[in-house]
């Protein structure tokens, strides 16, 4: 379980004192939580606090892993230890050199290897399994830079899977993908959550993706949490209006089996 308690964070170069102000969220084990909100509302900042890349100015983020006796604050853990429990899939990944797909995925093994240890057969097996789980095993020897956007994103997810963490944070993983790839990634995440019990937090602008995938939602606006709870309770026309200043219809859709959001017009 990952929990942020009254965390505040400021980049120190904004007019506003905090880009994240007194935020408390709880990510339960096995949940698939959607993080919604307009641009600049603090979604990415919250993800960076949840994985310890940023340190909160106030409040603490704690992790209660299965192997821990109790919750431990992230700042008391080394990067290496933290990386064995929490993995991150950023929106885009641009390596400076032309790594192969296999090399990119094997980088996920970093926190499990000691200083001078080289990846052994078991690490290769884990990497191959991660490639298979994301449907990218045929790309193993390809140059990562030459892949399409959807292939790259699946390879980065495979790299995060090779990290073998119980928690996966994803920052708009479908933002630059076409409709087909969006569905592929959504199906992949749902399967990983269901079959491997990977706890996930998914920051996204795609309300329909969130409605389809997530069992819980956190709505953020202006660095504060507007609402959090089960998707069915939180995803309403009134909340969408409050969140984006957009008049939208939220309805249950028979064929897909989940809520859909149809934006009608911009208010204000």
């Amino acid at each position: 379980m990952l929990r942020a308690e009254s965390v505040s964070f400021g980049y120190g170069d904004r007019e506003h004192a905090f880009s994240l102000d007194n935020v408390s969220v709880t990510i339960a084990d096995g949940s698939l939580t959607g993080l919604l909100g307009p641009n600049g509302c603090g979604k990415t900042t919250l993800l960076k606090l949840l994985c310890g890349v940023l340190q909160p100015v106030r409040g603490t983020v704690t992790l209660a892993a299965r192997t821990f006796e109790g919750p431990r604050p992230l700042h008391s853990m080394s990067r290496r230890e933290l990386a064995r429990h929490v993995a991150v899939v950023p929106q885009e990944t641009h390596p400076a050199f032309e790594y192969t797909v296999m090399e990119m995925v094997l980088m996920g093994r970093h926190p499990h290897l000691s200083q001078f240890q080289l990846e052994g057969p078991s690490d290769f097996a884990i990497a191959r399994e991660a490639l298979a789980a994301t449907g990218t095993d045929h790309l193993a020897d390809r140059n990562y830079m030459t892949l399409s956007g959807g292939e790259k994103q699946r390879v980065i997810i495979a790299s995060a899977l090779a990290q073998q963490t119980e928690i996966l944070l994803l920052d708009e993983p479908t933002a630059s993908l076409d409709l087909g790839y969006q569905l592929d990634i959504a199906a992949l995440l749902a399967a990983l959550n269901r079959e491997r019990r990977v706890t996930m937090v998914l920051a996204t602008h795609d309300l329909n993706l969130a409605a389809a995938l997530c069992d819980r939602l956190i709505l953020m606006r202006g660095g504060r949490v507007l609402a959090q709870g089960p998707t069915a309770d939180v995803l309403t026309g009134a909340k969408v209006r409050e969140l984006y200043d957009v008049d939208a219809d939220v309805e249950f859709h028979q064929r897909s089996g989940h809520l859909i959001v149809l934006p009608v017009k911009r208010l204000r």
Partner: protein
Amino acid sequence: MKPISARLIAVIAGYGALAIAACVLAPLVGSTHISLARAFDRSIPFADNVDAQIFFVARMPRVLTGAIAGATLAAAGVVMQALLRNPLATPFTLGVSAGAALGAILVLTFSTTVTLGALSPVPLASLGGALMASAIVYGLATRPGRTMSTSVLLLAGVTLNSFFSALILFVQYMADFTQTYRTVRWLMGDLDVGSFGPIVASLPLVVLSFGMFAVLPRSLNLLSVGADAAATRGVNVARTQRLAFLSASLATSAAVSLAGPIGFVGIVVPHLVRLMVGVDHRIVLPASALFGVAFLVGCDLVARTVLAPVEIPVGVVTAMLGGPFFLWLLVRRS
């Protein structure tokens, strides 16, 4: 894909053999013909063995200087490129060579006789200048507990390079023709250090920086993917960046104070190596160090022989090879 250990062993064996071959064969070539068998013949006393004296005393210091400068500049180039996430970075991008040049030129112009152990005034001053430039860039780019910004590093380096160049021009304007000539010669880079003394004096810094290089490669892989990506996969980014910066700066300072600012080794060698062995830093770093030995010793062989008996500075040869190579690289990337 072959296991990394097998690739590493093959690469070190192959490039190591190349480096050793270059260092053993290069001293054989020169104005006087000598025989390798005779040079290593233990039955002849060293004092009477002219071939051995030419091999070890006259030519070996120059070859060893090339080996050390080649290895350190190539390895420092690899580290800088990963740290700055920019394949076109060189060991000189962050102002180390300009600082060294300023130090050397101050001594060459307003000659002093300060020495430190085996370090004579010019290497000592260039080492001081290089370390000062590194300290300035480091001070500008680091904040306690924060990661370094590569754009701040690059900006600080580029600015420092031009500022030091302005100071160098100013000092040159004050200098007379003899001093200016010596300055220009120093800037070309030269492996003719004359004895083993300067080589021994450079060793502590070289050994220290290679010790730091040894712990870096896997973290450099991740750092070159992105600072956040590295952090979330367990890399202590701030520490790795500091270690990379310090090791590359120390290595470059040692090489430049020994042999002058020999250009293009730090970019040509890593790129050639990546074309041959891929981009994994655990393989690229040792391979580049070893290939740097062979490359610079080879370039110096050309410098000594192409216009014999005139010896041209090795920096001219590396720049003539490196300039077009750099352009080819740019065209190939775009």
